[in-house]
């Protein structure tokens, strides 16, 4: 992780408006939010509340209609596609609801993919993957393709992939939505451990009570706005 004192994320009055035929949909409305490094934050809310769109805006997957976003101190809003790709590569890790591993790569190759793009040396890649696979209980499954892994195992590989490139933050969009209770709990244990031991910043979009219950900060969204922002001890 970067040793910088800048927040992992800062948004300032961001809006995201979609035009759907004649209708204008305000998915995110005037959201200002700061996430410090090392946080374990959940953005919660019902379907359509704008939490996934907010995550996409923070991760540079889409651009705000208005307002500004900083990730690790870099302003995202005005970046070119090339710069956004570099930002995502170096500063943001993603964990998706549908796991989204690349089916043509093995678990090991999926996990090291961002590091390959970063140009991390082979031995360094191997060392990081080895450590993270041990922490996540995935040792011995390195050569399996995603199709040969369970949902929980796939999501663990996705978490390793997101963390191994040492980003400023990991954005996880409904990471437990496709998992059963036990697997969800186990995955949360893994992510909490990575947060505690390695200082990885996690921001979740979720409506899973388990995730909300174990997060240290809970941001509630309703109709595209932040309704409440609660930090727990």
């Amino acid at each position, binding site marked *: 992780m970067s040793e910088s004192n800048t927040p992992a994320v800062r948004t300032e009055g961001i809006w995201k408006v979609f035009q759907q035929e004649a209708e204008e949909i305000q998915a995110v409305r005037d959201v200002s939010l700061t996430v410090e490094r090392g946080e374990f934050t959940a953005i919660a809310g019902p379907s359509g509340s704008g939490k996934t769109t907010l995550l*996409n805006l923070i991760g540079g997957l889409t651009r705000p209609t208005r307002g500004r976003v900083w990730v690790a101190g870099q302003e995202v809003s005005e970046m070119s596609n090339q710069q956004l*790709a*570099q930002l995502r590569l170096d500063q943001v890790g993603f964990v998706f609801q549908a796991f989204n591993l690349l*089916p*043509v790569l093995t678990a090991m190759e999926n996990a090291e*993919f961002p590091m390959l*793009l970063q*140009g991390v040396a082979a031995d360094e890649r191997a060392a990081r993957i080895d450590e993270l696979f041990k922490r996540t209980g995935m040792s011995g499954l390195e050569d399996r393709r995603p199709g040969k892994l369970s949902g929980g195992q796939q999501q663990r590989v996705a978490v390793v992939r997101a963390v191994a490139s040492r980003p400023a933050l990991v954005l996880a*969009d409904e990471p437990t939505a496709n998992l059963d209770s036990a697997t969800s709990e186990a995955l949360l244990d893994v992510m909490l451990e990575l947060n505690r031991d390695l200082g990885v910043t996690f921001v979740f979009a979720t409506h899973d009570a388990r995730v909300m219950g174990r997060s240290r900060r809970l941001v509630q969204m309703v109709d595209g706005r932040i309704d409440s922002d609660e930090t727990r001890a």
Partner: protein
Amino acid sequence: MHARTIVVLAMRNLRRQMRRTMLTAAVMVIGGALLIFAFALSDGTHEQWIDSGIRTSTGHVTIEQPEFRTSRRIENRLATDLRRKTEHALASPEIAGQVVAVSSRLSISALASSAAGARPAQILAVDPVAEARFSTLDDQLVEGRYLEPDDRLAAYIGVGLASSLELRLGSRLVVQAEDTEHEIAAQLLRVVGIFRNGVPEVDQAVVHIPLQTAGEWLGSHHDVTNVGVVLTGSTAVAAVTAHLERALVDPIARGDARVMGWREANPALAAAIAIDSFGNYLMFGILFIIIAFGIVNTILMSVLHRHREFGVLQALGLTPGQTGTIVLVEGLTLTAVSGFIGVSLGLLATWYFFGDGLDMSALMGEDMTFSGVVIDPVMVPQFRLVRIAQILTFILCIGAVASIYPALRAAKIDIAESMKFER
């Protein structure tokens, strides 16, 4: 590192949809093989046409007095010293490997007559030894023999003329033509051989006589109306023409000589080959447009099925350009590998089945001719490296062009939208 990662992803994606990949590859393989097969036969056939046409006319390259081609008059001839200079230039080591035969000839229009009547004739006065290497007429003997170096009043005539004038071996005929003094001069000849070429204009008009006899008859001595050159193939024409134009720069500048390739000397044959080639290009152009649509379809379907994956790749840090490059590499690899296999199979099949020629005589009948060319019913394929390179390049271009649109689609995806895809 990015390049290797992109190539690995592209290769594995091709393997992933093996059936679809193999089906598209099969179409490319068949297309490539057909292309090689058809062009090898076509190139071989065209070379036969050229060889047939040029050997009964003025060769791959001809050196003439500039006005002779339109006037056909004896006064527009190459003087003996210019003829010698031309023959000397053709003996140069620089082009010797490309020159198969050189024949210096005096070609004049004449009237041939016998007791049975008179017919217009095309007298070709030749050195019998040089002409035997140049022309195929000596091989088309029906009766008697071809001219020999010691012949004096010998005539070698076609079956058409022999029939019209009721001539047989040993028969006498008289030929009359304008001499160098613009007087009508007659020469008595005796038939020593009769040929059958198949081209009616040749069989009814061409008469070969010794060059020495013509020189004495017409007062042209050792002068000729053209020096014809047969080369190893039509591809050597440009180099030999350029060499001759350098060697004969002064006579050419004075207007005493002109160097022509077979296309210029035989425009009807050149046009026939161009039309035939155009037909081939058109047919295979259409075939490959259809194949290109097949490739576009295969790769585009693959891209559409992987919409979410391309979103993931870009979310992980791949740029739109790199994402599009994966698709381009897939398309190019597919076409390059299948194109190479297709070309190899095409060469092998053509060589195995038709190395000695494809006999079409059952379909063509006898003596199909055009533009002074007798079409050989046995089509012998010709393999040319340039043609193989052209076909491989063409296939690769088709692959590249067909991959561009799918690659753009992959590059320009909306990452956030693609994540919703198939969810």
